[in-house]
């Protein structure tokens, strides 16, 4: 454990790794500054910027493989230097950031391409691409920073882009509210992250990854626990995990490419990145790991249960995102070799979830922005490409043998069974149950959308397939959904070690691998079969009365109500009370002080008469005083 982390300095071509951030940033600045004048080319500029980023990332990626430590650092310039504290604008390109860069630029490029078609009829398309590029730059900064302050800059940058894009159609009240909600809930998480960073300042005197990870060993149990919990709070906020999960589904008010890129493939996985990056902190404290595992397990079940009760195609996908990130949290919480498993699942998820979101967007595009799956049905014949690609995504997420999810989710479930004692059973079964539920609600979504009888609203006559520029990315992502998991699973695990810990070989699950896999497959097929049988003939067109569980799930398990009663109401009361006391007490004092300053100012002002004679007088008096004071000092009266 006690090995020192050191990164080589980036030289040669790798020294230009900052270009990854600079290119989309410049493109975003150009588009946003030109405003309407850029409308003709903004979408191509934005897409090209990300495409260039992808090509560069590939080059860097292959160069990195030949580096001695497979990690290079580049300090660009000093950002803050106060006393012993130094923060550099510094970048770190290592296996972990490399795979994230590939995901961000690769999937990001496809989604940009898709958005060219999807947003074609929006008159603010150029603004959209400006924000989209801004997001990409911030996200790349987040994963490329070599210290927590850089990470935080990126963290807030992606947050900003996310709020801007959620409320992109700000004239819709629901979009504006969703943006605000995302902003407020993220602030809670961000506060945690900021305090954690301040703790690093205070206890370690540095926020550099290398210094922090090398210094963790010297910190006390409580400090590590606090630091880790605060980091976790930040991670749960950004990744929509319990207890801060409620904003993510509402964020679907943004345009669909935003949901695909930001709220499925990349930004919401920043929490997983944070924990994986900080694995030295999280591995150092078992209590901490247990908390992370619990958050993951709980959230994955919450996501499944609510996802099964929703009728809005994007909300179902959003809750499935919450649930899948739950799996990733479970993975990073388990520690050891499971860190890599979580990252691999994250990559595979990036493909299949982006694929399904874009598929959903394609469906909406053909169905006049209808999002209610009760009003779809029978679309497979009319949208063959969308159907085929969405099917690939569906098979991937439910973990159908041979598809991505099977190779990436399975190992996490097995790893959950590898814990010691009774907790293996608890978390293992939670993960298994989640797999079954996922199969159920995703099949429900798939069947209701594409199969069964038509249940369209009257105004829709001929749903049409989307244009090639939207179908192309879908096909590529579908191929990725199908095969990425299988191809990546073992090479990526090797590639990621280090920075992530190696797999331990002396662990044994409480049940054998075969049994776990069989159980998971049985549950998956049961979920698929049940959903197919229930929904193959369609469903009621309006919400039906339901039992306690379904009602609760429809209400997001009362999380919003909980927030309202526990935080919002007391919060409003508290602010009112504070305003009251502020007016009476504090403002009294402050206003008194202000009045004193103001009054003094008013009185002093009268000395400024405008007459030269009185000015000269005041200078004379001043000079006399100064001379007198000097003489007094000289005589020893003052000092």
């Amino acid at each position: 454990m006690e090995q020192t982390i050191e990164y080589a300095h980036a030289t040669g071509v790798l020294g230009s790794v900052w270009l990854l951030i600079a290119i989309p940033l410049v493109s975003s600045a150009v588009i946003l500054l030109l405003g309407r004048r850029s409308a003709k080319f903004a979408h191509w500029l934005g897409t090209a910027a990300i495409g260039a980023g992808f090509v560069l990332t590939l080059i860097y990626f292959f160069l990195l493989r030949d580096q001695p430590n497979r990690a290079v650092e580049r300090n660009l310039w000093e950002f803050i230097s106060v006393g012993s504290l130094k923060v550099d604008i510094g970048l770190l390109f290592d296996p972990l950031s490399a795979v994230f860069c590939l995901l961000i630029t690769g999937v990001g490029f496809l989604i940009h391409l898709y958005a060219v078609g999807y947003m074609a009829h929006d008159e603010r398309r150029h603004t959209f691409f400006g924000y989209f590029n801004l997001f990409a730059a911030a996200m790349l900064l987040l994963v490329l920073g070599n210290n927590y302050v850089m990470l935080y800059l990126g963290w807030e940058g992606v947050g900003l882009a996310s709020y801007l894009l959620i409320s992109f159609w700000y004239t819709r009240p629901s979009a504006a509210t969703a943006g605000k909600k995302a902003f407020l809930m993220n602030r809670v998480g961000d506060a945690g992250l900021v305090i954690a960073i301040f703790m690093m300042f205070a206890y370690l005197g540095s926020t550099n990854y290398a210094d922090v990870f090398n210094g963790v060993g010297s910190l006390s149990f409580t400090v590590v626990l606090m630091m880790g919990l605060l980091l976790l709070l930040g991670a749960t906020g950004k990744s929509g995990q319990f207890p801060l999960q409620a904003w993510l589904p509402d964020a679907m008010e943004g345009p669909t490419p935003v949901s695909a890129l930001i709220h499925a493939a990349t930004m919401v996985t920043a929490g997983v990145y944070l924990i994986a990056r900080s694995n030295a902190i999280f591995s150092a404290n078992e209590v901490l790991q247990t908390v992370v595992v619990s958050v993951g397990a709980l959230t994955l079940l919450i996501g499944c249960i609510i996802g099964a009760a929703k009728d809005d195609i994007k909300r179902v996908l959003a809750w499935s995102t919450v649930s899948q990130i739950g799996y990733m949290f479970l993975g990073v919480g388990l520690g050891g070799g499971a860190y890599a498993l979580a990252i691999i699942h994250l990559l595979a998820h990036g493909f299949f979830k982006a694929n399904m979101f874009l598929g959903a967007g394609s469906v909406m595009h053909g169905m006049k922005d209808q999002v209610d799956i009760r009003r779809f049905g029978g679309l497979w014949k009319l949208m063959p490409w969308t159907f085929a690609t969405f099917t690939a995504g569906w098979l991937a997420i439910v973990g159908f043998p041979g598809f991505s999810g099977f190779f990436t989710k399975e190992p996490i479930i097995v790893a959950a069974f590898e814990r010691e004692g009774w907790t293996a059973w608890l978390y293992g079964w939670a993960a298994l149950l989640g797999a079954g539920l996922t199969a159920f609600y995703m099949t429900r979504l798939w069947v209701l959308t594409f199969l069964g009888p038509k249940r369209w609203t009257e105004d829709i006559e001929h749903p049409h397939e989307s244009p090639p520029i939207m179908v192309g990315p879908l096909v590529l992502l579908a191929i990725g959904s199908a095969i990425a998991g299988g191809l990546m699973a073992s090479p990526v695990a090797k590639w990621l070690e280090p920075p992530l810990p190696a797999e331990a070989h002396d662990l044994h699950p409480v049940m054998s691998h075969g049994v776990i896999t069989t159980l998971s497959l049985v549950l998956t097929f049961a979920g698929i079969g049940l959903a197919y049988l229930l929904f193959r003939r369609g469903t009621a067109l309006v919400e039906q009365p339901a039992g306690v569980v379904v009602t609760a799930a429809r209400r997001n398990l009362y999380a919003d109500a909980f927030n309202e009663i526990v935080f919002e109401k007391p919060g409003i009361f508290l602010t009112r009370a504070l305003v009251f006391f502020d007016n009476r007490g504090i403002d009294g004092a402050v206003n008194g002080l202000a009045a004193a300053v103001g009054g003094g100012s008013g009185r002093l002002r009268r000395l400024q008469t405008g007459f030269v004679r009185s000015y000269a007088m005041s200078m004379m008096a001043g000079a006399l005083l100064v001379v007198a004071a000097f003489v007094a000092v000289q005589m020893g009266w003052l000092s």
Partner: protein
Amino acid sequence: MTIKFPAFDYAAIAPILIVFGLAAAGVLVEAFVPKRARYLTQLVLTLGGLVAALVVLVTQADTRVVTAGQAIAIDGPALFLQGSIIVLAIMAVLMIGERALERGGPFVAQAAITVGSEEDRRQAARADGATEIYPLTSFAVVGMMLFVSANDLLTMFIALEVLSLPLYLMCALARRRRLVSQEAALKYFMLGAYASAFFLFGVALVYGFTAQVQATPGAHAGGVDFATIHAAAATSPANRALLFGGLALIAVGLLFKATAAPFHVWTPDVYQGAPTPVTGFMAACTKVAAFGGLLRLLYVAFEGARWDFTPVLGAIAILTMLVGAVLSVTQTDLKRLLAYSSIANAGYLLVGVLAGVREGISSTMFYLVAYGFTVIAAFAVVTLVRDADGEATHLSRWAGLGKRSPVFAGVFTFILLAFAGIPLTSGFISKFAVFGAAIDGGQTWLVIAGVITSMILAFPYLRVVVMMWLSEPGESTPTIAVPGALTAAALVIGVAATLVLGVAPAPLLNLSDTAAQFIR
């Protein structure tokens, strides 16, 4: 007795000579170039000459020499401050040369015409502004450059006069509100002469002191060059009253130029009355010169008396900060508000000067540059907000400006935040630097006063911000004129520097740190 002509290191003083030549050439242009061509000739000549001086200065960056018979010291601080003065003067000349905002520019054509006469009305409407302003500016810049490198009190006094006399004239040249402008110039001149008298009397006293002690065996007694003063102050004769009396009076003369209380009284009236580009020039460049001179005086000549002058000058610093901050609160005119803010900033600069350590020199120099950029940008915005009667400087007129012109209101907000010392602006870094230096130098009491007055001072700034953004534009809200290329350039340079020095201050901090070593 033979008088030997002292040796000159012409390379070292080349930048001063270039600007001096520039000023002389400007006078010739006034005499020989036809009237129509003068504006362009002068503008190009002045900007070109200043840039040339800057280039030569940069090539001389490693010079460390005392030349001209102990009269001029070209060392790190001198070069740094001279460079700062030239850069800020270039920005000011850009504003001075602006003619797109107002027909004929911001200066009167013939200052001698009686205000209000028929002829005056005609010239106000039609005639192009006087181009004498350019050689005057160059002369003032020469004085300032000499002032920060003067190595004896008499050279310093001459430099003081060379920089002051053109400024008095420049203050009187406003095209609009000419009476206010002339009143400002007269006040500035009378009080400036008064302050000069103090300075000169102080020089006499110091000479008296050095003449009475034999500093080094063999050296002839008496002299006002800094090395002699330093050596004389290091001996301990019974009566040092002459020394301290002299220092006190010299300090009064310098503090007058530095706008420190209670010698600040002229500032609001002059800043308000002078043409705005000239105000910007004074606020930025004169401050650099005054504090540059003060630094050299205190760190080179009177270094040995540090423990004696620090309490007194510290009290002046606190008074300055208090007066500037408290009086800003009730100002209703933007130029006056900026004047009081400039006074308060003089207090913060004094804190840096009094730190008494090397960081004190470097942080003060950094502060001067950062503040200079921001304050010129601020006055550039002031020239843009205008109505039919010229600039609209009353605060009430700025209400709701954010709705009329969000870009300029945004820029001005940024500038005000920089004045208030909000992070990510140069204002934060420079305050932080001087306060940090003062703590290092053991002057915590000054820092406490500095922080408290900063809090007070944030109020008037934020009040302007609130007025611009949260009030509805009224009938009388003026329009913002589209700046010409020159003002736009000055504004962009100022704002960009404010931002860059706030985000990546390290290069300039390092530069000022390497430069912060006086030679004697």
